């Protein structure tokens, strides 16, 4: 299953907090796609994912100041 989380317009640390909350409701192996435009999130979101043991399957800049990251729950 894949869930999409759009947090465009949210400033740090809310994209990260939203992602942390959203992933809690997923089952192991499910994917969470986060679309964000908060620059500092390019540091905090992948770092949190890696440290929490989840797998990042995709991480890309999609536009001027817009990014997408796909996190697979451990």
């Amino acid at each position, binding site marked *: 299953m894949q869930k999409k989380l759009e947090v465009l*317009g*949210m*400033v*740090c*640390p809310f994209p990260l*907090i939203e992602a942390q*909350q959203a992933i809690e409701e997923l089952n192991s192996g499910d994917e969470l796609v986060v679309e964000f*435009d908060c*620059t*500092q999130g*390019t*540091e*905090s979101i*992948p*770092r*949190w*994912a*890696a*440290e929490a043991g989840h797998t*990042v399957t995709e*991480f*890309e*800049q999609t*536009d*001027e*100041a*817009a*990014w997408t*990251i796909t996190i697979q729950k451990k």
Partner: protein
Amino acid sequence: MIYMIITGLLCGALLGFVMQRGRFCLTGGFRDMYLAKDNRMFYALLIAIAVQSVGVFLLIDLGVFEYSAGALPILSVIVGSFIFGIGIILAGGCATGTWYRAGEGLIGSWIALAGYMLMSTMMRTGVFGPLNQQMQTSSVLPTNSIAETFGINHWFIIIPFVAVVLFIIYKQLTKPKVAIPKLKAKRTGLSHLLFEKRWHPFVTATLIGIIALIAWPLSAATGRVFGLGITTPSANILQYLTTGDQRFLNWGVFLVVGIFSGSLIAAKASKEFRFRMPDVKTGINSFIGGNLMGFGATLAGGCSIGNGLVMTAMMTWQGWIGLVFMILGTWTASYFVFVRPRQKAKAAKLKQEVTTA
């Protein structure tokens, strides 16, 4: 005047560039010490303090300029720093952070900046001037310099501090690492390094320490014997714009304008600039936060840069006490802004599950 404009803008632009690319966010750093039990950004700040401290005291010992920390208005430092800490959580960035995020095109930071400049001016030459004066002159301790209080040479403080910082770096760098996923590289060479690659916070911090050090002789040459400073110059801009009085133009004014420009250049070049409008709640919080920042930083005689980075490096009570209360302020605000709403939402959800079950 020309010298002041060029060196101020250059120094600021360098700082803005490094902060934008290095994602140097003290507000986030202080907040995450509490929310995520993550001290990395705090350690990075200590590195920047150490680099600057060694450099500035060498320059002072060599007689390049003279500096006296003066007296310590302890009450206003404590109260001001705490309020400033609350303000930066609401505004989503400290004073410098707000300047460089404004350069990334975040309208929320423009709003915070407006509140910050307005309140800093009101605290100086406006209606709150007398209140500020009164707070500044009540409960003043005679010495601000830590070394002076103990009657020892400043190196007896700096060298142990540097040793502690080196030990922390060693501990952090030898910790088992998790691989942090990176963005796919689309550029190569210098362009990749400057505009794409993730910078290690400790590298960013070292660069910031060096910039903070260079700021001292550059600024001193214009008669302003201090390092990086944000709050006074931010007020000075508004004072200059509204009175047209050139006395308000100083090295610091060009420094903060430079921070904005440097960040704008970095964000543009790395495709990270876009005007972003916040929602109503974030906008209001930004304005309130900006005002609290201006009020607190003026009272405390410095923000997270003036007190947290510069006065700490000068080994003053004002810097370190200010830093501690600033951090306590961010933790207090973090509890109300991030922790409590989450607990409430969880409790509400549990209740709902029980009733539907």
